[in-house]
């Protein structure tokens, strides 16, 4: 059990798939402009704007309820903005050609049918994305779930569920990873593996956006942070800039989000 709970110490190399047809090289990987989402009286996301360039790992930080998950859902086409827009590779997510080959995302680690095996979960997604069945075995090996892939998902530990979610996101060998609170439930070894995997992914030109409310898990992984509070962007900074000004991420975060906490 301990062995399968620990994530492998691989650099996460995956076999490349044929590149998607369209190359919109000049568009930022993520372009969010004046994004707003209201639910009745509540404004979950308020005039949010930011863009991300290729090859960066960005932490998307804020207290619980700040609008992080809503922003990701808008970005991934699961919800429609009230106004403004969120584009990936210059397109609305729902208009992307072969989205699985461009974007991999994990919103909830527990998005599994308890009675379906991990392998069948991935096979169903691979069929829909028209990816070769060999990709299922490759990503299972990558996250070290190949030994338990035939078991029903209800028998999986939280860490195994996290890794199955990540495996699903990696099926299409995407160029952008969007992860909502990915380290929840991972043991220290798992967090370490995830960190080196994401660094390797960005090193190969991939772009990563990770949301988190746990500063410590992000501080060692990301190049830059976006901090939001009550739906608004309150800071955007590179970690090395913060360091050169003698500020810590924690100071900046607490100072900017104090209103939300009180």
């Amino acid at each position, binding site marked *: 059990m301990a062995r399968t709970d620990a994530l492998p110490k691989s650099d996460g190399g995956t076999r490349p798939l044929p590149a998607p047809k369209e190359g919109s090289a000049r568009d930022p990987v993520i372009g969010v402009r004046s994004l707003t989402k209201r639910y009745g009286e509540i404004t979950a996301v308020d005039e949010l704007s930011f863009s991300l360039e290729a090859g960066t790992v960005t932490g998307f930080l804020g207290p619980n309820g700040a609008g992080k998950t809503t922003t990701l859902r808008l970005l991934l086409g699961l*919800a429609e903005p009230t106004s403004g827009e969120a584009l990936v590779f210059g397109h609305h997510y729902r208009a992307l050609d072969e989205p699985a080959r461009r974007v991999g995302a994990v919103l*909830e680690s*527990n998005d599994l*049918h308890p009675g379906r095996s991990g392998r069948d979960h991935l*096979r*169903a997604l691979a069929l*829909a994305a028209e990816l070769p069945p060999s990709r299922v075995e490759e990503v299972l090996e990558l996250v070290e779930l190949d030994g338990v892939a035939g078991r029903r998902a209800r028998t999986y530990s939280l860490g195994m569920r996290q890794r199955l979610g990540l495996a699903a996101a990696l099926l299409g060998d995407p160029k952008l990873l969007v992860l909502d609170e990915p380290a929840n439930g991972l043991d220290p070894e798992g967090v370490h593996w995830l960190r080196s995997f994401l660094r390797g992914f960005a090193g190969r030109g991939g772009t990563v956006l990770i949301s988190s409310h746990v500063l410590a898990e992000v501080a060692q992984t990301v190049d830059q942070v976006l901090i939001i509070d009550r739906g608004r962007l309150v800071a955007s900074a590179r970690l090395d800039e913060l360091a050169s000004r003698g500020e810590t991420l924690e100071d900046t975060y607490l100072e900017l989000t104090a209103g939300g906490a009180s």
Partner: protein
Amino acid sequence: MRAQLRSELLKQRSTRTNLGLFAAMLGLVSLAVLLHGLGLAAEQLGSASDQLMVLGRGEFLAALFAALLGTMSITAEIRHGTIRPTFLVSPGRGRVVAAKVWASTLIGAGFGLAACALAAGIGIAALRLRGIDVQLDGGDYALLVAGGAAAAALWAAIGVGIGAVVRSQVPTVVGVAAWLLFVEGLLVGDVAGVANVGRFAPGALGMAASGQDPDTLVAPAVGFVLLALYAVAAAAAGWVATTHRDVV
């Protein structure tokens, strides 16, 4: 679309949900046909119409269980959250709903075939056991099985549509079961004057499509066509609801 359909068919056969529904359906069909075939007085089983009523329990239960499998194909995804990875990989949500409708329709037809064949086998055996003359011919059996399979297939599509609109699993399942088992019984039953409207209810149309109760219900072809319209309307409602609302 073919890729999406294959994905949906894999989803449907990779859990035990449908197997459980199938087994429960066959068990209930056996029980219902035996209770009617052995329990009713011989004079209530003499005519072709009486005998079709007994054998028609197969169609009725197939429609119910096919509807349930259709609703589960989408409400289980919403309940367990797999709808998120599904729509991330296939952001064309309308295509996902269409694939669920086709996959459920195919499996629903299988449910209908099996239930009607089993009901016919057990029903005839029960009648012969009691020495009652079987009044049905090959055409009746063919209509019973083919019409029952068609009705179950269409009810599966109705189930997907309702599931996509309601989204929550328990209310959907309870609602579909209550409608077929209780509400329609009142509409088509002995309440004076209501049967005129009740025979156009979807459950009654499914019974009509398999040739049951020809004195009260509409003709089989009419039943099939009108039930198909219900299925198209339900699937369209599910399509609109799924493409226009945020994913929960």
